[in-house]
């Protein structure tokens, strides 16, 4: 419970964060930027977990645990994605998303 702030305000904040992430994910051309947008999405959902847990079920802690999991998974995923991007860069000397179309074939 945070005094003076209702759940709706926080949920509005996370929704805005989430859709900023989505927007960035779809419109960015650089793979690294896309990865950063993805982090925004993940953070928005992690905050949601914590807030909902705190406001609706204060006696439980599962939501908090989930957010910790999400952070761990996000770290692993970022490491993996960066590795892929580096490998891709070695192949095509570019991290622009248009240039990855050759992977369709």
């Amino acid at each position, binding site marked *: 419970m945070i005094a003076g702030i209702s759940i709706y305000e926080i949920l509005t904040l996370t929704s805005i964060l989430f859709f900023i992430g989505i927007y960035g994910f*779809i*419109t960015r051309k650089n793979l690294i930027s*896309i990865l950063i947008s993805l982090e925004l999405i993940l953070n928005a959902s992690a905050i949601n977990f914590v807030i909902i847990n705190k406001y609706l079920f204060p006696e439980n802690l599962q939501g908090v645990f989930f957010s910790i999991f999400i952070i761990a998974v996000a770290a692993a995923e970022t490491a993996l994605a960066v590795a892929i991007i580096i490998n891709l860069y070695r192949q095509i000397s570019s991290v622009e*998303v*248009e240039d*990855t*179309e050759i*992977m*369709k*074939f």
Partner: protein
Amino acid sequence: MNISYILLIPLIPLAVFLLLGFLNKKIKPAIPGYIGVLGLSASALLSFYAAYQYFFVHGKVAGVFQTFVEKTVWLNFTETLHIDMGILIDPISVMMLVVVSIVSLMVHIYSIGYMKGDDGYTRFFAYLSLFSFSMYGLVLATNLFQIYIFWELVGVSSYLLIGFYYTKTSAIAAAKKAFIVTRFADLGFLIGILIIGYYAGTFDFETLNNPEGSVILNWASTSFMGLSVITWALILIFIGGAGKSAMFPLHIWLPDAMEGPTPVSALIHAATMVVAGVYLVARLFPMYYFVEDGFVLNIVAYVGAFSCIFAAIIAITQTDIKRVLAFSTMSQIGYMMLALGVSSYDGHEGVGYMASMFHLFTHAMFKALLFLGAGSVIHAVHSNYLKDMGGLRKYMPITNITFLIAALAISGVPPFAGFWSKDEILVAAFEQNQLIYFVGLFVAGLTAFYIFRIYFGIFWGKDKKYEHAPKESPLSMTIPLIVLAIMSIVGGFIPFSEFITADKSGFEAHLNYPLAAVAVSVGLIGIILAWIFYKKENDLAERFSNAFGMFYKWTFHKFYFDELYMFVTKKIIFKRVSAPIAFFDKKYVDGTMEGIGNKTVLISEKIKGMQSGRFQDYAFFFISGTVVIALVFIYMWN
């Protein structure tokens, strides 16, 4: 009597077939022949031993030959209706074992010489073994369905062997023709079997053939279109038999089957497979005799008699010696059929049955001999046609003498084998049906004429100049000729009537001297006419054929039956029935299915642009989809 060892008789050739078939090219050229001969010798020895055991030691109990059966249930339908696999030993199956063994063994030995150096040497012996296996299986079958299975197997072997030279167009066409025509006839056989299965409730020969059994006693219980259903079944089964035995309307495949190698013609298309139809009728003889008071037997008799005279007339005009022999085979099988047709059941009344089996036996010997002799001649002069032959007696003495013996045997000259059996047939016909008797007698004359026509044409006649002087065939080919010649001489002295009769009890047969004298003199007239026409080169034959004119031309073209069938199938069935159905099938049935496929391809062509390969596009679709679903849920849920 312990009969389990008889199971080995068909299994040994099967093993040889599998061995040769799998080894095929990995085997040295000369070996397959020896393996084949060895395997078949084993089967033949077992057959002879079985025959000795059956006829002279264990077979007869209280004056009646017993039937021994050993079988296992293979497929179970109902309490009584089941398909068994097993072996059945009775006089005719043992007799057939001996016939198949002798002829097949001789043909195997002969083929070592005849097929030497051929590309498909191994394949040839593998097929021969397959055929021997199927034929033994057919002979030993315990029930209708088992006989049908092996019936088709001999059909396949025959197809494979006719089409043995598969690079020759005519051979392929002949193989297909033989297979299709006999298969068409077998459709009748199959329907007959199914009717028997449904109405009689059993396939078992022993139950079906029991004269006091329920099947024969209750034949009239259900009728269809004025005849008992069992009668219909027997007619249909006879159609199957007629197809395999090349009886009149279904005979067209047999002459063409001569495209196969000559040993094959001797084994399959003269001595064994083509008599399967006769064997089938003989196997079901009590049914044929008792059901509808022998109505179907009359059909058998008339079909046999007609085929007999029809084929004999055609045989006179053919110029390909193998085709003459093919028509002669058809004619002789007609004899066997008509003998069965005029036969009764009990004791001496059953002389026709006995004569038919007797003629089957002797015919197998002398006709195989004729074919192998013809093969020997063809081997020497490399042609099937009479015009390329003449005066060969100087070059090929053994072939000449053995061929002469066979020709005398088939002409019914005493004391050769054919005389005795043909005499019994004529006696049986004379007692039952005078018309058929005179047909038989007339054909006896024709037979003597056409066979001596080719004999004189090959070995006497004009002294032809050959580019390479023909020489006598090797020992592997002449030994079978000599063995079969001996069989053709002594075969007639076997007292068949004591061993093989319809009621299995045997009787004393006597020579009917007046009838025999008439038959022999008719045969001699045929021979003398042939002597006058063909002994020395002269134009008498040509003058006669010109005098007959139209009739000669019709006969030469086998009464245009091939053309008639071609017309019926191509112009009427294919064009008027099959073509519209095929059109409907292609246009509408296939059209619907192909339309569905084409539309799918078309749509996917249109929408494949959506798969751009840009993952952001996919993410966009995915997210918009999620948003849409979320909105739907939010606003529609309550």
